[in-house]
């Protein structure tokens, strides 16, 4: 029995390689995130003060930003593969690429802004209360 091709994306294409590489990175980064942010924490979620303290560690901050970039990239590359399976004109494909790139940049920028805001605001609040 010859199976119909399930997807246009072929193993070895640049998008496949990027998806595999970000996926492998995510096994590590998501694993770290789940353990350090949730499983290690009593009750599964830090309260506000604990989040600020945790994220104020530059190393943790950096890891979370790297995680954000890799997970956003992987997610949007996945959306791209699914959308391209619809069978689009080359011009439409280019527009999808532009739209997803813009969405990716906005997402990462938002995440960096949010993380920086949490640390800055949180330290001010905690110092004022302290």
């Amino acid at each position, binding site marked *: 029995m010859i199976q119909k091709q*399930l*997807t246009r994306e072929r193993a070895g294409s640049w998008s496949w390689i990027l998806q*595999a590489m970000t*996926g492998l990175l995510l096994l590590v980064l998501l694993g770290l995130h789940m353990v350090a942010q949730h499983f290690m924490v009593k*009750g599964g979620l830090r*309260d*506000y003060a604990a*989040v600020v303290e945790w994220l104020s560690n530059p190393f943790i901050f950096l890891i979370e930003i790297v995680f954000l970039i890799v997970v956003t990239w992987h997610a949007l590359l996945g959306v791209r593969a699914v959308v391209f399976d619809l069978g689009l004109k080359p011009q439409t494909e280019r527009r999808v690429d532009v739209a997803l790139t813009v969405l990716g940049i906005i997402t990462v920028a938002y995440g960096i802004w*949010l993380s920086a805001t949490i640390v800055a605001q949180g330290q001010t609040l905690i110092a004022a209360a302290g």
Partner: protein
Amino acid sequence: MSAEVKPKPADRSPGQWFDVRGRRVGLWAYVVMRLSAAGLVLYLFLHLGILSQLAQGPAAWDGFVAIAKSPVILVLDVVLIVGMLAHGLNGLRLTLIGLGIGIPRHKTMLWVFLALTVLLSALSALAIFAETK
């Protein structure tokens, strides 16, 4: 192995993407992959959106934390973890196959990864519900 089949464009219309009738187990993996992918993408943006509560100060965030510990949310957390494990481990399987690793034993690999998904999901569920008691 039969003669190599030349790859051709996907010829399943979107309505057929999730039709697994008469298909092999690999197709089930494909369906799980696409469904979990859709869920995980939605969850990613939901998660990033909810984290904005942290910019609203302690009352907003700690209020959310209280809600997030309700049993319904915890069950959804388990669903999320099952999705992540299924997607991640199946993705690893596809990557290995794509790189030409373990092809003669691809069936065994599929069952091993499935077993791992079930095992890690069960452990996560236990951790989630044991901890919050």
